[in-house]
């Protein structure tokens, strides 16, 4: 509501007109339909003032099973345990410039590592790599929300005994992973789902994924 400003300060001897007397009451009658931030103190609203839905909300997928699933795919594949894909069905159309915060975490188990170094060509060091990503699917296509990479072993340059016969370094078992990103919704679309996916660089290595979680948190303006 705009602030009411049509109040005249009458002085002794003034003869008020009907318009002057009516003005503040008429202004209140009109503006009281559009009460807004100018009329409220900071921090005035608490939970009891809101109907559902309120500003922030969250949605989750959790797999708490301590069951390992193995992946040696070199292109992204959705993590799936017990027939349950790691995904959140959103079916949600945000307002333009709404933000969605996505978070994922989990545990890498006992991966089977055969190659953590390649000493020739453009792939030097790359076989040690595995990665996760979050893939958002909308009614218009897919959006890659980011890639988060890890190493299978403790391999470093100074760990090489020979560039011709590189030794295999210690695999890192039971390594937790966690990452997050923020998606800014800039064009009209319906968000259908978000998935947690993984891949390895070399299919000679097999990534073990144990319990894992995926969260979507909406932050409205």
């Amino acid at each position: 509501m705009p602030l009411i400003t049509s109040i005249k300060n009458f002085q002794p001897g003034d003869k008020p007109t009907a318009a002057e007397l009516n003005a503040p009451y008429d202004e209140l009658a009109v503006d009281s339909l559009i009460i807004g931030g100018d009329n409220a103190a900071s921090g005035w609203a608490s939970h009891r003032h809101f109907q559902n839905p309120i500003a922030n909300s969250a949605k989750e997928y959790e797999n708490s099973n301590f069951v390992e699933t193995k992946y040696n795919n070199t292109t992204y594949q959705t993590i799936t345990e017990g027939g349950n894909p790691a995904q959140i069905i959103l079916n949600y159309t945000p307002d333009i410039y709404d933000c969605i915060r996505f978070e994922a975490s989990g545990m890498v188990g006992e991966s089977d590592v055969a190659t953590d170094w390649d000493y020739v060509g453009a792939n030097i060091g790359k076989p040690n790599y595995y990665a996760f990503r979050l893939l958002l699917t909308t009614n218009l296509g897919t959006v890659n929300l980011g890639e988060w990479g890890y190493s299978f072993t403790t391999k470093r340059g100074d760990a090489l005994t020979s560039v011709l016969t590189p030794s295999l370094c210690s695999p890192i078992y039971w390594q937790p992973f966690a990452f997050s990103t923020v998606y800014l919704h800039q064009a009209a679309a319906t968000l259908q789902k978000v998935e947690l996916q993984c891949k390895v660089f070399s299919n000679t290595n097999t990534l073990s994924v144990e319990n894992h979680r995926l969260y979507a948190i909406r932050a409205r303006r």
Partner: protein
Amino acid sequence: MPYVKPYTYVNGNVLNGSDQDNNDSTAKLYVNQNILVTDLATEAFDTADIERGELDPIVNHHQFTTGDVWGRFNDSAATRDRSYWTSHTKTNDTVQTSNNSKQYQALYECGDTIVVEHQGKMFFTFGATIISQENDVNTQGKWDSRVYLMVSTPSNPQPSIIGGTRMFTYEETTTASAGTTDPGSVNLIGTPAPKDETYQNRRWMQFQWMYDVSPGVYRFFVAVNPKVEIGYSSARQFTMELFYNDFQEQG
């Protein structure tokens, strides 16, 4: 409903006292207690209008109102901020060296008591470097100290482990479960690289977790079940966020 003016002034008419009082008292009644949700403009308010949570510094309790965030971190370079633990605080030598005992110690600055007003979800983000430093005196001691989120309530004061958050501070490189082997001393193909111990041991531990809450009081904290003689954490980061509804409710 919006304010409706009871009396309209007309030029030349004598102003009646009750008409004037009626206009004023109706305005006072509306402004003081009759503003309804339909009187509020669409998208006119932002987060600055929403009440913040409250901290009671005496008991360090937090009360959330519309959903809030609480967290803290410390400096990874400051050794004074390390949170040490040791298995020697356990009841006896057998328990100290057991791979199954569950006597825990809370990590500093990684917990709080929360007052929840409505049904909701509490979201946790935790990260720390957790290091198993010494395990030499008692050679039977294990190395895989475990870290997890725990919760207690007034009706269930004995803290319980939230199993999905379980992590290992160190796991050796064989396929067997962690035992008495020092980090880096076993390698799948023989002698480990010199710095394997450091790289295996000093790894970042992290989890995110969402926990359903009902109105009431909760105490959450991250704890370690120590199995080594000296261990510590640094660069601890811990946040708790409360959400009073979920995506489904918005339709």
